[in-house]
Every structure is written in structure tokens, then in C-alpha cells.
């Protein structure tokens, strides 16, 4: 009896793994994972760690919505490369930079629509690929209700605790005033702000990351720790509910892992070490107008 239970348990454990192996290339309706992560119920696009560490490809898994494809918008390049759809498989959507010189920043959208609701998950992905800035890409309307960063963090930058960042909310391409925008973080914070007349809301990233919280940066041990957050907004129009979310990560306040006191002390030690250079004066040479002339 015990042996039968053990075999059954092994089969149950091995089944999903084998299925994943067998059908990894097939498209998948993500109905098996309709719910978000525990910290939020908003739709998300979450990165899956890459085995080969490629810098020009990524796998994003939709969470909390049922989609068969994600659409990736690039900052530049020929028109057919500026908007590319990628199928969602068991692994997620394997996205890649569409070609050389299309730009570093890529905007990724997963959209689910039924008769009552339109749910959108969006995120930004940075591929190391020189090209145009994302200004035009962000300006371009992509779906009905949008959350648009104003601006995105620069290369070597990120959203960080205690910082304020602006986000534009657009409806049908136009700024939406007095619209609520909700922030939820993996650390458990939930705040709400409202857009002004220009459709822009300012979000203060909370100082809520636990000392050991978050994941390592893109390269283990290299770069700041990252914690997930999602911004969401919703609107009822034309008999439908429109829910849009934008998720990515933020980092701890650098002051947590840096010491200004030590920095200033070392700077002062360097200054003191240079002081002996100032002690001795040399006689000024006599450079008359006629020297060697």
C-alpha cells in the first residue's frame, strides 16, 4: 500500500515537469494561472530567470490574466520591428530585441478582453541595444487605458525607495484628470494617488524594503536588490471595466547600503595626505620676455 502511495506521489510530482518538457513550445492560454501573486491581485508580467543569462532575450510570464500573446514595442527600427507579438507558452513569452539599433527600452503589453472587462498588464524591459530614446515609443497610444512613466529611469538608474516619480494616465490617448492610481509593493505597502489636470500623478516609493528583501540584481551580486511593485488604475466606460497595470521593480534607498560618513572620512584622509605637497614653495622662475627669444 505504502509503495503504491509512493509511486502515485512520484507520478504526481513528475507529471507537471514532464508535461512542461513535452509541451514547452506550444502556445498556452494562461488560464491555469489566472491569479496574481500573493501580494497583489493586479495583472502582472513577471520575468523568469534566464538559464543562459542572455542580455538580448527574456521570458515574461503573465499573471492574473488569460492571454495567448504579448506585444513588445521597440523605440526604433523599421516599422515591422517596432511592434512584435510573441506567443505565450508554458514557460511564458520569450521576448527578444527585434534587431540591432532598435533601442534599449522595450514596452511590453499583455491584453485580455471579454464582454465585461479589458485587463492589461504592462511593463518595461531594458535590452542592451543602442538606438533611439523611448520618448516617441512612450508617446504612442497602445491601448485604451494606459499608465505611462514620465520618464523612465535612465541606464544605471532605477526606481528607488523614498523617490518621487511621475506617471501619466491616458484614456484613448488623452491625459485623464482626477484618475486614481494605486501602488502596491511586494513589501506590503498599498498607497493611492490621483492625477492632476495634466493627467500626471506623482508616486512616492515607500521605504518598506526589508533588510534582506528583494532579489539580486540582473547579475547575482552585481547591482542593487530589486523588489516588485505594480501601479494600477481602472475606469468604467461603454459598459466595460478597463483595468490597466504597470509593474516592474524598485530598489532600496542607496543610503541603506552606503555610508556617507565613511565616504567623507576617506575623502578627508585623502586631503590630509596631500597637504605635505603644499608646504614647500619653489622659487618662481624668471621668465622675461626676452628669455631665449
Amino acid at each position, binding site marked *: 500500500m505504502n509503495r503504491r502511495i509512493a509511486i502515485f506521489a512520484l507520478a504526481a510530482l513528475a507529471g507537471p515537469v514532464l508535461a512542461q518538457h513535452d509541451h514547452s513550445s506550444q502556445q498556452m492560454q494562461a488560464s491555469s494561472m489566472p491569479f496574481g501573486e500573493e501580494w497583489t491581485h493586479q495583472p502582472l508580467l513577471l520575468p523568469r530567470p534566464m538559464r543562459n543569462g542572455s542580455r538580448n532575450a527574456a521570458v515574461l510570464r503573465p499573471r492574473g490574466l488569460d492571454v495567448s500573446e504579448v506585444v513588445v514595442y521597440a523605440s526604433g527600427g523599421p516599422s515591422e520591428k517596432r511592434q512584435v507579438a510573441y506567443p505565450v507558452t508554458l514557460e511564458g513569452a520569450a521576448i527578444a530585441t527585434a534587431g540591432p539599433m532598435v533601442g534599449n527600452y522595450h514596452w511590453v503589453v499583455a491584453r485580455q478582453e471579454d464582454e465585461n472587462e479589458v485587463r492589461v498588464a504592462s511593463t518595461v524591459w531594458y535590452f542592451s541595444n543602442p538606438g533611439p*530614446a523611448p520618448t516617441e515609443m512612450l508617446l504612442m497610444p497602445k491601448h485604451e487605458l494606459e499608465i505611462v512613466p514620465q520618464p523612465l529611469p535612465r541606464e544605471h538608474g532605477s526606481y528607488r525607495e523614498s523617490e518621487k516619480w511621475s506617471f501619466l494616465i491616458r484614456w484613448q490617448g488623452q491625459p485623464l484628470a482626477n484618475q486614481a492610481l494605486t501602488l502596491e509593493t511586494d513589501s506590503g505597502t498599498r498607497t493611492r494617488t490621483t492625477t492632476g489636470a495634466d493627467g500626471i500623478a506623482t508616486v512616492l516609493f515607500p521605504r518598506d524594503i526589508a533588510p534582506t528583501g528583494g532579489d539580486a540584481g540582473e547579475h547575482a551580486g552585481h547591482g542593487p536588490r530589486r523588489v516588485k511593485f505594480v501601479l494600477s488604475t481602472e475606469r468604467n466606460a461603454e459598459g466595460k471595466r478597463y483595468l490597466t497595470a504597470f509593474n516592474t521593480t524598485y530598489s532600496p534607498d542607496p543610503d541603506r547600503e552606503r555610508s556617507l560618513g565613511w565616504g567623507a572620512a576617506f575623502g578627508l584622509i585623502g586631503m590630509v595626505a596631500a597637504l605635505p605637497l603644499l608646504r614647500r614653495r619653489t622659487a618662481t622662475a624668471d621668465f622675461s620676455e626676452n628669455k631665449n627669444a
Partner: protein
Amino acid sequence: MLKALFPTLARVRFVVQLLMLLLLVYGSAIVGHYAAEKISGELPALSCAYDQQNAGYCILIPTQHQIHHRIGQGIVMAQKVTFGVFVPLIMTVLTFFAFFFVLGKMFCGWVCPLGTLQEWIGKIGRRFGIGLRRFEKGDLGDVKRVRPVKWVLLLGLVFLLPLLAGLGVAPHSLGNPYCDICPSRIATTLLTGNTEQLAVSTDDNISFTLNAIADLLIGFTLVGALAVRQPFCRICPLLSFNALFQRLSPMRLVKTKHAACDKCSICTESCPMDIKEISEQSGRKAYHEDCTLCGRCAEYCPQDGVITLKWGPFKLFSSSREYYKNKVKRELPDGTVKPVKIVKNAATPNPADA
């Protein structure tokens, strides 16, 4: 009008340095917020990627990152070392070279923000009578002892350690070790009111040590520059990086042999890098690896046409006796500024006489 505004080459260079400092520290207001809107990420002058308001990055950061993330990891993964691995590095070097081709090592003497800061601090030192210290026998020692340091830093911190980190032999915190010790990172971010880079990382011992070295270097440089001209430039790996390519740019220093050169060393006296070869040599050897093409040697050469700044066949500035005479009236070759004489205008009647 133009001559009144820019009476000397030094004045032209001062204005260029001022504009470049503004552009390379605060320039995102002009060229846009995002990296891709910047002038370049492969500049031949120290311009820090950690500064979130600047308008370009120097070549050293992508070089370290590409060796670390692409070449090192590419070899470790036992993938074929193909164009897919090396092309990004080649593109980085080619972009750098596109800039370098135009201005050559003038990026050091005319554009680099840290070079500009050191030079201006040196002017303050001269103005307040702080004695100039030179790398020469009898003072700070032979300049030749300092020269290899910049090559060691280039090979060790820009090329070797990032590669070892990419291979997994060295820890990832040694992935961009030069940037971690670069005093320009501290100086330019402080100029934007950001103290984050001055603060020392307490993540691990390696980061702590590297950040501490950066702070020691910027402290030493800021005070040392009062007495020693361009103290950090002498060991800067970007100077050695640029020196690798200096013969490939049409921008260069040309010196012809002259009989007076055996007795005269004013050009070396005026050189902020204490290059003896400019007075002792001529031709190719006079354009030394330490030269930043600042042009001071040409300004202070009292012989017509002996030292020339050239771009290809075009003479941009050439030494002349007349220019030298006017120049030393205002400033001595070591940078000492002559006191301004206030002379009462004889044509103006004194009210007391009325």
C-alpha cells in the same frame, strides 16, 4: 570683437572647458533624459555614468561591462566566440574612435570635466601663491616613475579584472573596478548635489575598499591640485586608452627641431604634465603619450612655428615670438598669474584738482 573675447589660445580653451563641464555634468537638460538621446556612451573623456544629469558617458564603463558580461561570460558558457560576442565591443570602440578621430587627445585637455576641475584648482593655487611642485629630480622625483601607473590601471582595472569577473574567477563586485575607484565619479556627482557616490558601499569588503580608494583619490586630487598640475591625469587610464589611438587621429602636436631648443625648456615648464620630451625631442617623439593637447607648450614657445597644433594638413595654432611676449606679460609658464596693475588713466582729470 572675436579677438577681444578670445585673445589667447588659453582663453579659447577655458571657454571650451567651461562649456564641456556644463554639458558633461548637467547636459541632460539639453540633449534629453535618456541614455540613447545622449551624445555618446563612448566618449574619450571622463564623464560618469553614475551622474544622472549628464550628457554622455566615457568609454571606460562600456568597455568594462562588455568584457565582464559578454566576453568573460561568453567564454565561460563555452559558446563559439563569434561576432555575436565581439561585435558589441568592436562597435563601442568604433563609436569611441569616431569621436577620437575628430579631436584626438584634446578630449583630455579640453573636454574632460575632471581635468578642467584640476586645472582650475591649480589656478587657485597659483593665485594664492602656493608653490608649484613638479615631477622632476630634486622635487617629486622623475616623471617617468609615475607614467607606468596609468597603463597598469588600464590593463588591470579596465581589461583584466572585468574579464576575470566575467569568467567567474573574480567576484562580480570586481565587474567595473575602475569606475569604482574613479574620482571623476565622485566629483561630477557632487557637482550635481548628489552625495550618493561619495558614500562608501557597505555591501561587501571589496566594494567598501574600492569606494574608499575613490574617496581617497578625490580628496588627494582636490588638495594636491593646488600644488601639482593635473595630479590625477598622470595616472588616468583614459589617458593611456587615448594614447593607444593617438597616432590614428589627425589631431596632433608637431614640433620641429630648432637650435634654441637645447638651451630653452620653457615648453616643458609650461606643460601641465611635466613632459620633458617636448623640449628635448622633435618630430614623433615630441608628441608624447602623456600629452593632452592643451596647447600650452605652443603658447609658450618663443620661436616662430616650432610647435604647432595640427589637424591633418591644417595648422590650428602655431607658436610665435609675438604671441609669447604678450602671453608672459599675463601669466608665467608655470601658471603664476602676474598681479593686475591698476593704472590711473592720465587723460581723466582728478576731481580733487578741480
